[in-house]
């Protein structure tokens, strides 16, 4: 053992590192303990309890009974559940591409620091900070059958007034449209931030090589902002699968259940029909579906998301 090693060994012996590390660790745990406690009390325990409820016949009032996986079996065989899942997928498939494309288009239009651009960006973003319920109520009145704003406009062109929210073919497109207008501003802001990060010299080089606007967008802009597109897509899909307030206020799942989506179905089972066990099971099925969707997208990202590394 040489002198240096001996000195180091003595140092270690004098002030052992292990207890010191433990003290740091303890401090760390103490710092995060309020949050952990909050998460445990208000999230993990209720989630665990809801998971247990999903294996019971729980009528909210009265005695509960453990029934194993009967709720899950009943749900997957329930034609209404199959219909609401179809509606949820339809809503998501209608909203997500529309939202992403519109948000990207608006971001491309509004990215240049021209006079008045701030005002336009604000106009697009204002719905994001508007209360969801108020937004849905206003649109319900806009789409009113007799003297609603939309029908009044269409009447100028001789188009017969439509009962948009009471027509099973029109109700879902109307809800999709109003939902897109509500949230497109958020994705637009994400895309605006991403567009600022694209190096200008790449465009200069492309222009010198004779690339037009479309090729610049396709070969430079889109690959570089693809991580943001990926993030916005995941967030929007999850949000779309959890749609509730617009449906509750505008259509109550009607007409003929054409807009009844999974979260509305869960709410109805739990708080209108008081079947809490069944509703909990449906909620966990929704969780697993969203989880699976997210995993698939995560796996697919390797194929199209640009990575500088």
């Amino acid at each position, binding site marked *: 053992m040489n002198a240096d090693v001996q000195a180091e060994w003595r140092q270690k012996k004098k002030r052992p590192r292990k207890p010191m590390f433990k003290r740091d660790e303890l401090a760390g745990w103490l710092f995060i303990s309020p949050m952990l406690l909050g998460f445990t009390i208000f999230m993990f325990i209720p989630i665990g309890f809801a998971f247990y409820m999903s294996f019971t016949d729980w*009528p*909210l*009032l*009265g005695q509960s009974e453990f029934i194993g996986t009967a709720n899950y079996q009943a749900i997957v065989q329930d034609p209404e559940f199959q219909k609401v899942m179809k509606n949820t997928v339809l809503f998501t498939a209608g909203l997500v591409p529309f939202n992403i494309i519109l948000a990207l288009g608006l971001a491309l239009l509004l990215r240049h620091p021209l006079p008045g651009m701030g005002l336009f960006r604000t106009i697009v973003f204002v719905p994001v900070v508007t209360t969801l319920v108020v937004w849905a109520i206003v649109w319900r*009145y806009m*789409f*009113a*059958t*007799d*003297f*609603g704003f939309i029908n009044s406009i269409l009447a100028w062109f001789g188009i017969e007034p439509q*009962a*948009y*929210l*009471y*027509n*099973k073919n029109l109700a879902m497109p109307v809800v999709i449209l109003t939902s897109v207008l509500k949230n497109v501003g958020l994705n637009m802001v994400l895309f605006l931030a991403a567009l600022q990060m694209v190096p200008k010299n790449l465009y200069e080089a492309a222009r010198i090589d004779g690339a037009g606007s479309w090729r610049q967008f396709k070969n430079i802009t889109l690959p570089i902002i693809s991580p943001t597109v990926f993030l916005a897509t995941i967030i929007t899909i999850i949000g779309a699968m959890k749609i509730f307030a617009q449906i509750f206020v505008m259509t*109550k799942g*009607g*007409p*003929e*259940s054409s807009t009844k989506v999974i979260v509305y179905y869960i709410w*109805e089972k739990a*708080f*209108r*029909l*008081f079947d809490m066990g069944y509703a909990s099971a449906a909620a966990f099925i929704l969780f697993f579906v969203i989880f699976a969707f997210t995993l698939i997208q995560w796996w697919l990202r390797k194929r199209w998301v640009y990575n500088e590394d």
Partner: protein
Amino acid sequence: MKRWSISAGLLLVVAGCSSSGGSTDANGDEQIELTFSTWGNENHIAVYEELLEAYYVDHPNIHVTIQTTPFPDYQQNMTVLAAGQELPDIGWAAERMVPQFIENNILADLSALREDESFHFEDILPGTITQYEVGDALYGVPFSSPPHIIFYNKTLFEKNGLETPQELESRGEWTWEAFEEAAAVIAEEEGVYGANFFRAWETWENLLAHTRAEGGDLFNEDTTEFTWNSEAGISTLEMLDRMMFEDRSHPRAGDQVAFEAGNVGMFFDVYSYVSTARGIEDFEWDIAPVPLGSQGRSPILGQAGYVMFEGTEHPEEALDLIRYFASETGMEATSTYFAPPRVSVLESDAFIEQPGNPPRESMESTILNLSEESRVLPIHPEWQNIDNHILQGFDHLFGQTAEPADILEQMEASINPLVQE
């Protein structure tokens, strides 16, 4: 350790201070906090606040907190509170909520009121109390038993040269045919509708007045069979379909109309709507009974009552408060807005001649004479589920995607298993 003991001590002190019903006033009386839950609007609350001011004079140790929840959310809210054992002490309950509340044992027995001579239990119309009775137990006392009636825009009738429903009623000619014809004439003016059955697009029960007048009903007598799928029921839905899409005399689903705005000739609602109608200044209005059918007339009776919830810490005081609210004094006060089930109050000048009320003869033909013919809305512990299926049927009617007979057949197929369980 010292800090821990101080904290624990403080916690005990705070817990002691916040314990309900634990404090006493200068006279040594226990201070009692009661909660009273309603779906009333600010006018209704004002009536109760005034009533309570008088109550506090004799009960200085009691304070009542009034909680309000909108009617569409009320049953859900009470059920969730019951599950969390956070129910108020007393509250309102509408006819459709009572079976579910009784079945789940969240209502306390009020039968002590029967024996109380000062309460004059016999003064309450017998037909209004049956839904609260299970064996010898009494789970509520009604305070409002309004028949579903018609509010009509007298100005629109006169403008169109039509005889008013009251005029026709006085000759016994106020029939469903006369109703439909008048509605069609009124609707000839652009932007005006002849009649509206729906307060909201979910309140379909007014249509039962037509079915019953034609000899049908929603259920059989013991509510074990859905009977709306009958000739009478089909004719009801066909009438609505005709008025909406042929005559255009009834708003279509999604139309935003309101009787008080002056663009509806006749509007079906319970008498309690009078609280809104009294504020109308732009036109003259009056009330009329629902029209006569081939089998006579049997209007729907809405109903709301006072209930005491199980688990109240102060059952005696809560019962006493219900006794006061449902007494002659209490019902006289609430009869400003609600049709009282106490005969002495119902027939009193104080009720009939409330400021802003329709003429006495209208009140007599529409409210007093009808109370005996009326029957409470059909109810069932599975009401929410049944209501869902009926609303889905109306979606077909509103969207013109099925014929009335097919709609009722579909309703029967989905509702019968629920009521036959």
